[in-house]
């Protein structure tokens, strides 16, 4: 058969069969038992030419409401942010995206150096000493943090704040089940982790306390107050953090975190219906050898030149098999590259400026909503999200916002029984004053 991805010609096929000493390709499959041999072809859609397939799939894509066409006020862990255009140009270089894990360092210095730089940037932003080369996403990264903590402390209980992303908490529970680790949820108090409850719940079997900073409601948890409670009990202080927020907030590493995880999606990575994004995993030096996944380290070659290699591999599945610190193999290398390019473009000044813009525009939104008579559910310090109480169901409000070209916020009632008619609104630097005003106006119009 002729296909643009398949260079085999009938002459090639004949010559190769002759070399092998057989008559037909079928003979190569003679070892498949007759009883399980699949006859004929799959019952799937027939092949399409390049142009008819792109036409079909662009029509399919056009059925979706995207954040280029609509002004999005939806966050809840995934955000519409400024993506420097060069990000896509860099990650489209096929030397990067058609390579695999850099097992052969002599011909993979580009990828290895890029990862080393990523590790440095995450380390800088989080204030942690060590960062790995990436994880699947923020949720699985938090789950792996729980496993690390349980292994390190030989304790079997994790306390996770209800102000942590509900889907991340779900993933933590799934992983904990495999390890027979108990997961208990710390209740909320005014949109924050209830510290009195935490003090009650924490004990000498607690491996980790998990706090999100800023939390799922956009509120900035006071890590300074939490840290002594955690460490007094000998647990690992585990913080899940939006790395963009750390452009403006004191980083967890400076506030006593043992493990900081999160998702680098805000840095140049498209929403993509929830993935692929880019988990990160950062720890104190004391936990370096417990880290899951790939680590890149600096070394020298035979001539003393600086070079980079995958290192501390004795932690990993391909060496340690059932004794490995994690089963992770492929991570999110290309998205870590995307995040690196975005962090480089934003740089020292831009990261802070972007973070401050998020806080500032969200503040403006909050003031406008208040002025329009809305009640803000939690009035503490926020990053780029706030929760507003609504009179009508969020789903209905979002339907009318969509009519006006806007994607509304997240319906908190979907994840919290006590928060029916509460909308979690995200305001990134991408939203203009005009869009925010239009949003408030439309909300007000339904606010009778």
């Amino acid at each position: 058969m002729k296909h643009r991805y398949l260079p085999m010609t009938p002459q090639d096929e004949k010559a190769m069969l002759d070399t092998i000493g057989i008559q037909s390709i079928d003979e190569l499959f003679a070892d498949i038992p007759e009883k399980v041999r699949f006859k004929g072809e799959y019952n799937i859609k027939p092949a399409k030419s390049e142009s008819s397939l792109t036409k079909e799939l662009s029509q399919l894509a056009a059925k979706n409401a995207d954040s280029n066409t609509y002004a999005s006020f939806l966050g809840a862990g995934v955000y519409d942010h400024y993506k420097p255009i060069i990000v896509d140009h860099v990650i489209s270089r096929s030397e990067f995206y058609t390579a695999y894990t850099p097992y052969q360092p002599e011909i993979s210095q580009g990828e290895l150096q890029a990862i080393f730089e990523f590790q440095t940037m995450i380390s800088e932003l989080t204030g942690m000493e060590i960062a790995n080369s990436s994880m699947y996403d923020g949720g699985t990264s938090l789950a792996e943090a729980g496993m690390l903590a349980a292994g390190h402390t030989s304790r079997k209980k994790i306390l996770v704040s209800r102000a942590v992303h509900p889907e991340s908490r779900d993933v933590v529970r799934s992983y904990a089940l495999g390890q027979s680790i108990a997961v208990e949820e710390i209740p909320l108090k005014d949109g924050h982790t209830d510290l009195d409850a935490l003090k009650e719940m924490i004990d000498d079997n607690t491996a980790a306390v998990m706090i999100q900073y800023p939390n799922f409601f956009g509120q900035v948890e006071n890590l300074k107050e939490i840290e002594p409670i955690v460490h007094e009990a000998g647990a690992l202080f585990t913080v899940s953090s939006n790395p963009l927020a750390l452009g403006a907030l004191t980083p967890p590493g400076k506030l006593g975190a043992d493990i900081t995880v999160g998702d680098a999606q805000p840095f140049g990575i498209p929403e993509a219906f929830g993935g692929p994004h880019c988990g990160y995993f950062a720890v104190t030096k004391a936990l370096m050898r417990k880290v899951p996944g790939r680590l890149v380290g600096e070394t020298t070659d035979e001539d003393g030149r600086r070079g980079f290699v995958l290192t501390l591999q004795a932690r990993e599945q391909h060496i340690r098999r059932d004794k490995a610190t994690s089963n992770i193999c492929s991570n999110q290398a290309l998205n870590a590259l995307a995040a690196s390019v975005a962090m480089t473009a934003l740089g020292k000044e831009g990261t802070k400026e972007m973070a401050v813009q998020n806080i500032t525009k969200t503040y403006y939104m909050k003031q406008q909503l208040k002025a329009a008579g809305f009640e803000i559910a939690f009035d503490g310090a926020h990053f780029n999200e706030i929760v507003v109480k609504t009179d009508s169901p969020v789903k209905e409000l979002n339907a009318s916002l969509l009519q006006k070209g806007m994607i509304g916020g997240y319906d908190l009632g979907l994840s919290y029984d006590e928060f029916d008619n509460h909308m979690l609104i995200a305001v990134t630097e991408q939203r203009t004053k005009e869009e925010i005003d239009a949003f408030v106006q439309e909300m007000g119009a339904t606010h009778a």
Partner: protein
Amino acid sequence: MHKDNQPLIFEMTKEGRVGYSLPELDVPEIDLAELLPEGLVRDEAADLPEVSELDIMRHYTALSKRNHGVDSGFYPLGSCTMKYNPKINESVARYSGFANIHPLQDESTVQGAMELMYDLQEHLKEITGMDEVTLQPAAGAHGEWTGLMMIRAFHEANGDTKRTKVIVPDSAHGTNPASATVAGFETVTVKSNEHGLVDLEDLKRVVGEDTAALMLTNPNTLGLFEEQILEMAAIIHEVGGKLYYDGANLNAVMSKARPGDMGFDVVHLNLHKTFTGPHGGGGPGSGPVGVNKDLLPYLPKPILVKKDGVFAFDYDRPQSIGRVKPFYGNFGINVRAYTYIRSMGPDGLKAVTEYAVLNANYMMRRLQEHFDLPYDRHCKHEFVLSGRRQKKLGVRTLDMAKRLLDFGYHPPTIYFPLNVEEGMMIEPTETESKETLDAFIDAMIQIAREVEENPEIVQDAPHTTVIKRLDETKAARKPVLRYHKAE
């Protein structure tokens, strides 16, 4: 490749330079200190680079030149299926209606994305012969763990709590035992026989009432088809265990044998391998999992359903193992895989497997007189040579791998599987031409000759790369895992 070292981006930084263009701040400024609690306003900026846009582009272009991908040259890395990554996939995944949609949007606004996911699941069901597929796992190892958690839930639902062991062959991928551990199982190893296949007698010896599952790759990591798969399935099922298919090698059997028909209960696929992901320098991947009817209730939630032509996520799954990942999987990779499958069609996928297997057997036959071939029979999509003949002459497989770099090739997977001495695992894939294979074979033959006539040139390789062999011991002994500004 460029010989000059490329400085770190941090070493190119100059105070005051910027590489960004943020939206205008069109609302009143505020004082952070008034808004945030004391001590939570960052006082020392993260020391990120300060460079211009051109600096960035030149830096990463230079790095890319120091990297070898499939588009740079032949990449016969066994078990990784380094086939051509079609460019249409990249274009489609970037359509705004796929790239710029939020996972928590109202379902009515993302029906196109859900339709694509649904249709991909339908295609994967037919390809694997399984009853249902979830797209949630992010990569192969993640799929393994997901599958094992479902097996665990199945046994527990039957009150069968003594099944603590997962059996893996000695030739298995390292992720198999690691995933078993993460899922809370103990790993038991089953030996291979002299033909490189699972030793049935040993399997009978290790199975029992404590067997939760057997994890198997078929063809196995030697590239050999486990001919006694039905007998193995019977042994496992007879004791009440489940059979797990590691789909890393699916490229070898498409349209030839489906895991579901071979008796497998759970299957994971690596969409970045067989279905042209791409590999991305180490991810993102995608690791969908297929199950048969027994395991349906335990699928991660939500599952995607279609009712009266409308797609919806169903969260009402009381026996589900829960979520394994936020949202619905690596959608962007799934878009690429779907585009690939639709580009190939049924006849295309069949040809993929046939040519992948033909290419591997051709290479194996041309190379077998120059290297040891531990298992002399038709292989599937890959084969494993041994460098023990060369080792006797003082040249190790590692040396030969490094020498291949001088010829512009990515070497095969080396020292794996563990049951072959000085192993070299070669997987050409179907997208390589006979000319490419011949040139690589010639290079291998030349290296075999060099080992006999001039071993130093191999032992000292590589000679042409941007850097020579690196001191890995030093890297591990005194780990430097980030850049620090010189004091």
